[in-house]
């Protein structure tokens, strides 16, 4: 074509152009990539010579329809490769593509590989020998957040790379834990939006931290908003990159249940953390366990076993620095158990006065034994305590 005269753009720019094409869903792209290379697809679509009437996606949609071919040819003609290249270089986003240099082997072996992968951070993070996904609901309880944070910290300190989706709730807590132990282990975050569209906005600090201490990945090009279809697709990348998937808390339906299914499809071990049988936030994990689609996860021991690591001895041995509570406070701590209670409920359980219960709880809070959330008081677990 006469429009691509002078010099041809590098392959990674061509790959980015493919991701930017209108109507180009990831499913269509990986179906095309099953038959042709990125270079072939780009040239073929641009020149309008790519034809195959027998090419269908897994869910039975024709890929190279006349409409698609016209839209894509127009899309490639309308894009200025130089400007696109500059845009990605300025955003310091690296573009990986199927068959290209640095593309992770685990994804190349997948049956639904992301043909184009946008990355911010260090490429080395993708070569981590052991990767564990910690996923779960956005509507996490204090229990779930504590468990996720603790697993994140313990895995990072053992040199295991934590991968998650950077969503609110469990995902965020897992990465917070992994980043706060300050180990040199890299972390991986896989997001559904373009790397310049921080979603949820509350996690902007976490996005930066993950990119600084590992790799932030997305299949969506710069500027892509969080359309609902992008998130289940994002979950398949997490499932494919992980060696083990741990579901900490999940409702009966939701993204983490999809991740569990996708991980099972890929024969990755799925672990689920059990929760109270009446809690909505544990309905999904409990059902994974009762249907035997997941193994039980009660601590690092189970994760280590699933990774095929030695189950004995190693791991965090923290010495609990918290001063032991006195008799009164111990009584209150025991009454609180692992529930989340209001001060009134603690009063009812201990039979103490408002002042008595409050003083004991504040003393415990001050020494780090309990925390206070929107719903009330909860016991804080010590990391490494088992």
């Amino acid at each position, binding site marked *: 074509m006469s429009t691509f005269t002078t010099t041809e753009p590098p392959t990674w720019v061509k790959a980015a152009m493919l991701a930017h094409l209108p109507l180009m869903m990831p499913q269509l792209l990986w179906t095309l990539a099953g038959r042709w290379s990125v270079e072939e697809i780009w040239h073929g679509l641009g020149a309008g010579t790519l034809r195959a009437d027998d090419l269908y996606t897994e869910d039975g949609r024709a890929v190279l329809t006349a409409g698609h071919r016209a839209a894509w040819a127009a899309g490639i003609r309308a894009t200025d490769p130089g400007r696109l290249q500059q845009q990605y270089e300025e955003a310091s986003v690296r573009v990986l593509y199927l068959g290209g240099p640095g593309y992770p082997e685990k994804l190349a072996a997948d049956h639904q590989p992301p043909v184009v992968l946008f990355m911010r951070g260090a490429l080395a993070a993708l070569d981590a020998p052991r990767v564990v996904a910690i996923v779960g609901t*956005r*509507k*996490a*309880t*204090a*229990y779930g*957040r504590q468990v996720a944070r603790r697993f994140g910290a313990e895995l990072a300190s053992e040199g295991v790379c934590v991968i998650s989706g950077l969503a*609110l*709730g469990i995902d*965020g*807590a897992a990465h*917070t834990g992994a980043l706060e132990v300050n180990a040199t282990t890299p972390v991986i975050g896989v997001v559904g939006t373009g790397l310049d569209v921080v979603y949820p906005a*509350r*996690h902007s600090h976490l996005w930066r931290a993950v990119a600084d201490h590992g790799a932030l990945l997305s299949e969506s090009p710069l500027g892509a908003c969080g359309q609902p279809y992008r998130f289940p697709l994002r979950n398949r990348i997490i499932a494919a990159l992980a060696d083990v998937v741990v579901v900490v808390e999940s409702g009966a339906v939701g993204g983490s249940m999809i991740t569990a299914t996708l991980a099972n499809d890929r024969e990755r071990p799925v672990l689920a953390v059990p929760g109270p049988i*009446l*809690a909505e*936030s544990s309905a999904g994990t409990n059902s994974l366990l009762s249907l035997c689609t997941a193994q039980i996860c009660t601590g690092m021991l189970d994760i280590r076993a699933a990774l095929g690591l030695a189950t004995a001895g190693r791991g965090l041995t923290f010495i609990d620095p918290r001063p032991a509570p006195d008799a009164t406070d111990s009584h209150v701590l025991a009454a609180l158990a692992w*529930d*989340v209670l*209001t*001060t*009134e409920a603690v*009063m009812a359980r201990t039979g103490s006065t*408002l*002042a008595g219960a*409050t*003083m004991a*709880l*504040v*003393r415990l*809070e*001050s*020494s*780090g034994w309990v*925390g*206070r*959330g*929107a*719903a*009330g008081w*909860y016991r804080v677990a010590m990391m490494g305590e088992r």
Partner: protein
Amino acid sequence: MIASVSAATLLGVDGQAVVVEVHVSAGLPMFTVVGLPDAACRESRDRVRAALLSSGLGWPLKRITVNLAPADIRKGGSSLDLPIAVGVLVANGELPASRVEGMAFLGELGLDGTVRRIPGVVPLVDALTAREVVVPAPCEHDARAVGKGVVHSVRTLRELVEALEGLSPWPASSAPPDQRCSVRHVPDLADVRGQESARFALQVAAAGGHHLLLAGPPGAGKTMLAQRLPGLMPDLGRHHALEVLRVLSAAGLSHGDGPPRRPPFRAPHHSSSMVALIGGGSLAMRPGELSLAHRGVLFLDELGEFPPGVLDSLRQPLEEGVVRVARARGAVTLPARFQLVAATNPCPCGWARSHDAGFRLPDEPSCSCTEALRYRYARRLSGPLLDRIDLRLEVRRPDVDSLLGPPGRSTADVRDSVATARLRAVERGFDTNAAMAAGELDRWARLTPGALSLVDGLLRRGSITARGLDRIRRVARTIADLAGDGLAEPLGDEPVCMALELRRSVAIEAEVS
């Protein structure tokens, strides 16, 4: 002939002395008013003429010019009717000028010569320097409360002229109103069952003047609790009562019974406009709801439904105790040292709850709001506004046991301990502990070593902030005062812990993951 009479006009809650000059000269019969009168003031021409004629007094068929000095401030309202009438009488030679010397007049005239009630008697009288002031009879007790000059009250223009001419004595003043009858019926605190923290919070709010936020689902009793706060507050002192009367009077809401005994309680609806709440308006810069709640309680029910602009405008009054309203014609400062009591649902539908809150009760509906909607709702309330509220409480529906249980302390009982605690703040030189100057905290609100180590742990864990600690010390001071501790006795574990409890995070604060 020329006459000049003292009077005053109202701007905001302040009066400004005005001299009414009347000039009567030969010429075509004419009556003009100059000196920036507003519409109500210009119309006084017709009222004054009719009132003089109905009272059997003469109306000069001459050229009459009325000048309201100083000429550069706008005069509003009908309070200048009476001074204009007196001025005309003097200028026309019907009254000797010596009779009105050192006197000031305030009042609206009816066509039949009656002297009617006017808004703002208290600030107007306060602005005058005359030895004697004549006011309408319905405003008599308000005018006397100012304590300036000799106050005469008249019912009709005829009565005034006769008294000025010395034909009859000044009308006797009516009996002072019986203040005991004016105590409103207030709902009793004993009606509230259960809710121990909330009842304690009300007591602390009343004793320390701390702002209070109640959050919880519909039916938890937020409004019921808030309505019981005014009853717990002590009677207004003489000085504060006069401030309240001044605002009431300026707003035209005084019943003429003199200074009120009980603190005001204002509960504007969330659809109220910004001007209705803050004050202002194009005419007299009328005080708004915030000022009407001065020295009393401003209750904002459904706080989350108020427009964001209105919520932002609460910040200055919460900080400084005044509202500054600036308009093209000038700026006024209105008093607004109120105690804020706010109630809110945790989300627009009211049923949001933390994911932690355990199992749902069988009759409890689930929240139908989206996560983003809840976050936006919470964000509107949090931040700067929430920072200024000392007591934040989550109210839940009481359980059956406490509903059927014995009643708690009654309003009268609690009011006594509140009054005692308030005296302590006054002994320290502040109206309330909430108003204690930050620099004085180290003198009056020191912590015992035990309490200090508790606070140290919380600060290190990030459970409280430095600003939060500042507020917690004030609340703890109030709790210690209620317990009868010494004036500057260091704050122990108990008051500090209880203060923390009463400031605990409420469900509307967005959860961080």
